[in-house]
C-alpha cells in the first residue's frame, strides 16, 4: 500500500514539470464536439468563453475574443508552440484597455481545435499579454459563432 502511494506521488512529481498543463483539465474551455462541423464550450466563472486549441501541436488556452482583430499569442504560449520569440520584431503598436503595447507578426504552421484546423495562419505575438486570444481573423472564417443558453457554439 505504502509502495503504491509512494509510486503515485513519485509519478506526479516527475510528471507535473513535464506536463505543466495537466491541471488544465480543471479549466473551462474544453470543447465538446457535436458532430463533424460543430463544437461548443461553456463559459468560465467570469462569463468569458475560453477554448483549448493546438498551436503547432501544443495545447494552448485561448479567449474567444470578438474584440481582437487578430489571433494573438502571449510570449509564453508562442514559445511553447516552438516560435523563437527572441527573433521576432516587436515593432507594431496596438491598443489595449491598459494602454498601448508592441506586438510582432508571425505565422503558425497549424492551429487546430479537433477537426477544425487552419494551416500557415498569421498570428501576432504580444510583448506583455496575459492571455492568448482567438480573434476575428479566425472567427470570421467560420460559418457561424453563436452564444445561446450559456453555451458558445462554433460551426464550420
Amino acid at each position, binding site marked *: 500500500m505504502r509502495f503504491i502511494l509512494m509510486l503515485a506521488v513519485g509519478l506526479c512529481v516527475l510528471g507535473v514539470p513535464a506536463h505543466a498543463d495537466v491541471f488544465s483539465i480543471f479549466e473551462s474551455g474544453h470543447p465538446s464536439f457535436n458532430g463533424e462541423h460543430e463544437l461548443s464550450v461553456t*463559459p468560465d466563472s*467570469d*462569463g*468569458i*468563453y475560453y477554448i483549448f486549441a493546438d498551436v503547432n501541436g501544443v495545447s494552448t488556452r485561448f*479567449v*474567444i*475574443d*470578438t*474584440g*481582437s*482583430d487578430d489571433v*494573438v499569442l502571449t510570449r509564453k504560449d508562442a514559445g511553447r508552440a516552438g516560435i523563437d520569440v527572441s527573433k521576432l520584431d516587436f515593432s507594431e503598436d*496596438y*491598443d*489595449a*484597455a*491598459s*494602454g*498601448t*503595447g508592441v506586438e510582432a507578426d508571425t505565422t503558425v504552421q497549424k492551429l487546430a481545435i479537433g477537426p477544425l484546423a487552419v494551416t500557415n495562419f498569421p498570428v501576432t505575438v*504580444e510583448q*506583455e*499579454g*496575459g*492571455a492568448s*486570444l482567438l480573434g*476575428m481573423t479566425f*472567427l*470570421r472564417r467560420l*460559418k*457561424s*459563432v*453563436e*452564444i*445561446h*443558453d*450559456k453555451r*458558445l457554439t462554433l460551426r464550420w
Partner: protein
Amino acid sequence: MAQPLLKLQPQQEPPRPRQRWLVLLAIVAAFGVVIWALSALFPDAISGQGDMAGIAYFVAWGALVASGLVFSRQVSVGQTARNIALWLGIFAILAIAYMLKDPFQATVLRMQSQLISGSAVETASHEVTINADENGDFYVWGSVNGATVRFAVDTGASDIVLSPFDAKRAGLDTASLTYGGQYETANGIGHGAFVTLDRLNVGPIAFVSVPASVNGTAMRSSLLGMTFLKRLKSFEFSKGKLVLRY
C-alpha cells in the same frame, strides 16, 4: 551690361528690422504669459505629451502669423484695425459654433449611425442585426444615459467597459471615481472603476442599472462585453452579420 528684369519699387515704409523683431518678441512673450496664466487657472487642462505637442504646434503657427503681421511691408493702422475686427468676428462665430458643438455632435452621431456600419437595425421582433465594418469587426452604436457611444462587441471582455471619454459624455464624474478594479488585458494589468449605468441602449434593446467599469486610461472605443452579451437570449454572427436576440 544686362538690365535688371525687374526694377524694385522704392519701399514706401522702409523696414526697421530691429524694432519689428522687438514687436514680434513682445507678441510671443504676451502669448507665453497668456498660456502660463491659463495653465495656472486650469492646472488639469494640460496633461501628457500630446497636449504639449499641440501647444507647441499652435505656438509655431501663431509665431508665423504674428511675423507676417509684423514684417509685412505695407501696414496701415486702419487696414490692420479692419483686419483685426474681421478676424475677431470670425473667431466669435467659431466660438459660438464651439459652444453649440454638443447638440450638433449628437445630431451628427445620430446621422452617422443611420448611414454607416455599426447601426443596430431591428430586423424582426426582438431581433437586432449589426453589419460588420470594412475590416470585418463588429462595432455598434449604443447610448449610455442618452449619450451616443460606439462600442466594440467584445466577447473577450467580461465587463461593459467605458472609455474615460465616453464615461464623461454619459455624465459620469470620472475624476471622483476610484480605479480599484484590476483586470487582465492584452497589455498587462488594466485598472477600472466600477459604476452602475442608469440606462444602456443598443437599438431597441434597453437595460437599466447595468454594472459596468470605466477604464483608467484612454481607449479607442468602449467595449460591449459579456455582462451585456449574456443578458441576451442569443448572440450569433455569420457572414459579416451579427444578430442579437433579446
